[in-house]
């Protein structure tokens, strides 16, 4: 690497525009920051040697220069912005809320534009390779931009001397030259700057007053935060960081918790569903307009079990209670790194039991029986030697071309064919469907009526394990710190440069020049030092 030695003796890296130590413009490199002799110096990166501006020959150089450009970064942001917005034109596949397959749904629902939306793959836009690639490119840009600027900037600010080259001082945006300044006035200015929390360093009578240098690191800190978030996003793709499962548990049912390798079981003891009372004075007006009751609570009272010992195949595992609690929306239940979230409900959608009353021809009661949908009981005993035989059971009854059958195994619309038999009674068959009992023979002797039904609710729970969350949180916190650091503090410097009996004063800030001007103005108050002029306005 070629080094450039400045007349002050400091050795600078190749591509340096302003000497790191004394600030003297380095001949032959002024075009890099677009400086010209009659104008104020471009101070954005302290005239430091940035890789992207120095080496432009090889492929690596060019790639580096490409990604470190602000222009490219902004374009990537704009593209991501447009892509994200496009994905909301029609619902994403997971939100489409229809039984139709996507290939039909989008066209049927939205016509030609829907078809195009689907064919371009926009129905899964946010998980598409190109969207992820776009976000990855932003990530690369963040890393390269930050390294390209941070390293030389850090070096330049670390190596800066209090004694600056005269040209550097004269070509600052804020500058003034005063003659015959007394030593007292000079000291007043320095003290006033000290009072305003400037740090003073001195070299051969040259003064540098500086404050809030840390604000310069703000952008890099917030970029680090963003990079941590992106890395967390990658980590989250792995099972050891993040798993997700979904389970429907009916009231009274115990089920294995998905994603836990059969180690945990969950029991739904009871599901609580509550609605707002229409008598509630606060909400009366609003509830008048609601046809349906407004729910106030969805809650699963759950017990979590852990499997004891090793499970022998074919045997029921032995369970040990881990925890129990109420799972509500906004109040998940956590156990051993997992969380269970209330997510779905099938409110009173399945039959738990259906009970019947049986009478003989004289209206005498022969007893009743309670058909349990989840038990495989074939015979029910009644009094006087009578009994019931369940001949056919369809949990979700439907009639197809092949005759009666069940749409699913869930007792959502049970159909039962059963026979009543007893001493001196040939079997009389009945059919139960839709809370109604129909005899299947003419003029039966017995009489079967429906006594009661019991409906239960199935509760849908999301089971999550997510160890990536702390990383996201740390990333977000660092981002916020970086943004505040960079936006709310300003790096300000004032140089006091004695020169043949006169005193040169120059000032620089990375932003909010108005504020710096005020500080200098009040610091020279009562002295013979001239107020700095804004040379950018003048030129």
């Amino acid at each position: 690497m070629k080094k450039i030695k400045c007349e002050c003796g400091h050795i600078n890296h190749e591509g340096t525009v302003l000497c790191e130590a004394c600030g003297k413009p380095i001949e032959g490199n002024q075009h890099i920051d677009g400086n010209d002799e009659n104008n104020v110096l471009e101070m954005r990166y302290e005239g430091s040697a940035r890789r992207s501006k120095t080496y432009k020959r090889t492929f690596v150089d060019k790639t580096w220069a490409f990604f470190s450009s602000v222009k490219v970064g902004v374009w990537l942001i704009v593209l991501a912005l447009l892509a994200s917005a496009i994905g909301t034109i029609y619902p994403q596949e997971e939100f489409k809320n229809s039984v139709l397959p996507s290939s039909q749904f989008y066209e049927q629902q939205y016509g030609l534009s829907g078809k195009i939306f689907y064919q371009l793959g926009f129905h899964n836009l946010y998980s598409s390779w190109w969207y992820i690639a776009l976000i990855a490119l932003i990530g690369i840009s963040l890393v390269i931009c930050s390294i390209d600027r941070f390293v030389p900037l850090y070096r330049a600010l670390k190596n800066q001397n209090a004694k600056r080259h005269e040209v550097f001082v004269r070509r600052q945006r804020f500058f003034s030259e005063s003659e015959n300044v007394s030593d007292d006035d000079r000291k007043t200015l320095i003290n006033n700057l000290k009072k305003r929390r400037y740090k003073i360093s001195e070299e051969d009578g040259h003064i540098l007053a500086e404050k809030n240098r840390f604000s310069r690191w703000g952008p890099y800190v917030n970029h680090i935060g963003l990079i941590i978030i992106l890395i967390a996003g990658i980590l989250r793709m792995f099972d050891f960081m993040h798993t997700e499962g979904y389970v429907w548990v009916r009231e009274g049912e115990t089920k294995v918790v998905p994603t836990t390798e059969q180690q945990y079981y969950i029991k739904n003891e009871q599901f609580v569903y509550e609605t707002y009372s229409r008598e509630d004075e606060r909400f009366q007006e609003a509830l008048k307009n609601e046809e349906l009751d407004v729910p106030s609570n969805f809650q699963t009272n759950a017990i979590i079990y852990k499997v004891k010992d090793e499970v022998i195949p074919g045997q029921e595992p032995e369970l040990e209670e881990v925890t129990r609690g109420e799972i509500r929306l906004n109040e998940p239940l956590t156990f051993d790194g997992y969380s269970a979230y209330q997510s779905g409900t099938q409110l009173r959608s399945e039959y738990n039991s259906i009970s019947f009353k049986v009478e003989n021809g004289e209206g005498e009661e022969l007893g009743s029986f309670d058909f349990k949908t989840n038990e495989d009981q074939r015979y029910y005993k009644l009094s006087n030697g009578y009994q019931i035989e369940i001949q056919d059971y369809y949990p979700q009854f439907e009639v197809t071309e092949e005759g009666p059958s069940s749409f699913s195994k869930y007792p959502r619309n049970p159909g039962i064919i059963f026979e009543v038999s007893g001493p001196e009674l040939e079997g009389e068959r009945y059919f139960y469907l839709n809370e109604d009992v129909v005899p299947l023979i003419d003029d039966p002797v017995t009489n079967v009526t429906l006594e009661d039904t019991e409906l239960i609710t199935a509760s849908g729970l999301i089971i999550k394990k997510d160890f990536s969350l702390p990383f996201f949180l740390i990333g977000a916190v660092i981002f916020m710190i970086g943004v505040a650091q960079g936006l709310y503090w300003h790096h300000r410097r004032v140089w006091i440069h004695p020169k043949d009996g006169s005193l040169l004063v120059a000032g620089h800030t990375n932003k909010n020049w108005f504020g710096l001007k005020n500080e200098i103005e009040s610091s020279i108050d009562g002295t013979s030092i001239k107020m700095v002029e804004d040379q950018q306005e003048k030129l």
Partner: protein
Amino acid sequence: MDLYTVSSNFLYVSFILYLVATIFFGATIGNKREANTKSKASKIAITITILGFLSQLVYFFVRWSAAGHAPVSNMFEFIAFFGMMLVLGFIIIYFIYRETILGLFALPTAILVIGYGSMFPREISPLIPSLQSHWLYIHVTTAALGEAILAISFVAGLIYLIVKVDQTVRSKQTTWLEIVLFCVFATMAFIIITSSFDATGYEAEFVQEINGTEQSVEYHLPPLVEPNNSELVSDHFTTGIETPAWMHGADAGSKFNTLIWSLLGGLILYGITRLILRKRVAAAIQPRLSRVNTDKVDEIIYRSVAIGFPVFTLGALIFAAIWAQEAWGRFWGWDPKEVWALVTWFFYAAFLHLRLGAGWHGEKSAWLAVIGFVIIMTNLIFVNLVIAGLHSYA
């Protein structure tokens, strides 16, 4: 008087105070810059603004105690809160920069915003289970505050453009500026038309066939367009023109009808104004703002983004993600509202990079501030009303 009435009355009071304060801010535009900050008119104006803000705070907390939850749970409550934060944002920026002209534009914006929100149902509604969380207050209020401060940058941008855009010749810039001003007229028209028909109790009823089932659809404005595939059942005038079939969602016809009414009303208001002024609206305002310090206004555009952006990030992304994690077990789900918060965030990130990295000052910056506000409004109105998602409460 019950609490609900008390709170509503305080909202009326603040509405009127904002109007009065606007007039006083208007009285300051003739003043010289230095005289302005100390002038009587500006002191009265800012005092009334603060009184209005306090009155709206009372509205907020009284309604809170009446409902038992923070009033940020439906469209009306959220927009009213957004309007209040807009005033707060203005007050903060006012005390940094002492720019009275900002009040002349920020307060009418807040008035329009609150007026617009008042067209939605105003009853206190019960909180559905998914909203029953302290994060409702934390997330929604911070997000609204962030958006409101960002909106101040729009107000400053608008002032900047009115002052700076060359009005001697017609250009793209003058046309777009007129379009922005037309939107103000259309919002005004929406409020006037909706509240007028509301006062008369107008109600037309249609029966609409959707996917084979018949549904009743109510209109509160005379139907310029009917719902798609529907029949008028009440005894009212109708044009017989139907809403196009591709417009979906609940009440698509009624919303489309309202939109047409607002645009037509806006056109009429705008047209009359143009006829009276005999020049572009922005051209008519421009000479009155000749004393405005444009450098300061340009600085306000940046400063309000610099303050609003972190607040927005915190409220609309970070707090939102924490709540989503607690409620749904996932901190991010690509719900349209979430996506548009991200779009907004991307946009202002680009704004800051262009301003600080590529030197986009002045008019470029001002136009970006205007576009940013359009994105925020899209998220507030369009996403809630048109795109169905987890956040569509209205």
